[in-house]
């Protein structure tokens, strides 16, 4: 299909061009060019920006900002983002990781969006030219979002505070049965003082497991302590069904994998 690409040096100009109907932003192209190759006629034009800030990773005072065009491979090899390497490496095979961007992952429908699950647990903010939005607000409204995402920003949790698990049938790179990311803080006595749990494939986009988060507060990270959280983990979920797994299967195995992650 004919698919003209327009390239702009600034995000501002690219944003203006994106207003034309049928126009989509080109990140790494792993989903949008694939859609065009498959004959998706809703995509008639592509826009991209070569603004260098889109490729920047900055780390200052424990606060990380990742430009929207940064690839999964660049995150996985960045010396100061070791905590996130596992989540970045969960996305596709080597060639996909060299192309897939952070910005694109925020828009990827389930079963994709593994890195966005990590960003949701990290309580990231999503930046556009118009300012920053909490990631949850962004994800809820992403279908109607017409602005170029320029960056994501978050505070790096303490060592061991962040955990990530992708469950897939084919190793090492099958798509997700589900993915889970947690950011946990523990009080001096070892009980959980705060918990954020994000789930992939348990809805059409990454979601928080709020009931499980609540049930984990004040509990210890052992079999008995996490039981209530596991029992509550499917609350509010609407898992997807695809060739990898049915909604039923995903709901059945979520507590098992969440349990393993919390006890790991």
């Amino acid at each position, binding site marked *: 299909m004919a698919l003209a690409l327009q390239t702009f040096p600034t995000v501002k100009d690219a944003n203006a061009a994106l207003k034309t109907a049928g126009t989509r932003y080109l990140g790494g192209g792993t989903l949008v060019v694939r859609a065009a190759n498959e004959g998706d006629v809703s995509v008639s034009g592509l826009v991209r920006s070569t603004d260098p800030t889109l490729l920047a990773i900055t780390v200052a005072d424990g606060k990380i900002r990742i430009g929207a065009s940064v690839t999964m*491979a660049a995150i996985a090899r960045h010396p100061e983002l070791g905590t996130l390497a596992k989540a970045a490496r969960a996305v596709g095979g080597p060639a996909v990781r060299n192309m897939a961007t952070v910005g694109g992952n925020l828009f990827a429908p389930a079963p994709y969006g593994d890195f966005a699950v990590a960003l949701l647990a990290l309580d990231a903010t999503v930046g556009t030219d118009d300012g920053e939005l909490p990631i949850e607000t962004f994800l809820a409204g992403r279908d109607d979002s017409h602005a170029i995402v320029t960056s994501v920003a978050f505070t790096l949790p303490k060592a061991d505070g962040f955990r990530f698990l992708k469950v897939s049938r084919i190793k090492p790179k099958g798509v997700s049965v589900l993915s889970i990311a947690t950011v946990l803080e523990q009080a001096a006595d070892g009980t959980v003082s705060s918990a954020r749990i994000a789930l992939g494939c348990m809805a059409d986009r990454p979601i928080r497991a709020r009931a499980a988060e609540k049930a984990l507060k004040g509990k210890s990270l052992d079999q008995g302590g996490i039981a209530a959280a596991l029992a509550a983990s499917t609350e509010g979920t609407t898992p997807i069904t695809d060739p990898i797994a049915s909604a039923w299967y995903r709901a059945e195995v979520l507590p098992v994998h969440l349990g393993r992650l919390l006890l790991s």
Partner: protein
Amino acid sequence: MAKVPVQFTLNGSEKAEFIDSGTTLLNALRDKIGDTSPKGGCHQGTCGACSVIIDGELRLSCLTLAETCSGTAITTTSGLAEGGVLHPLQRAFLDTFATQCGFCTPGMIMAAKVLLDHTPNPTRGDVVEALSGNICRCTGYEPIIQAVLTAARSNSQNAA
């Protein structure tokens, strides 16, 4: 459809073409430039047959627009043999029967080349990981893994 200029180095030679905007690199290479070594299997990013190396990184040419490659250096399997002598990876694929229909072979070789460029002495696990984006419907993968390990050994013997 607007024609746009693209200019890149392909296997060491300068290429400059006018192409339709939105043309994939795979189509530009095969239909316009005449390098048919990258294969079009799925055009969806899943088979890896179209893999090429762009500025040292493995990429899927079916999902890459050619015009985004201006100024880059692209390597395809057809650029590996030098003076009629096969690259160690090509030799090893032949010697260990790692090719049956051969459709996946150029993509496999590109993925393996990037691995060996960065990790000259890979473990079996490294090879499996490096080839994980490439599908082969014929060989069962084991001969391919052996070929890459064999090429790595022959490389390190050459270096010694």
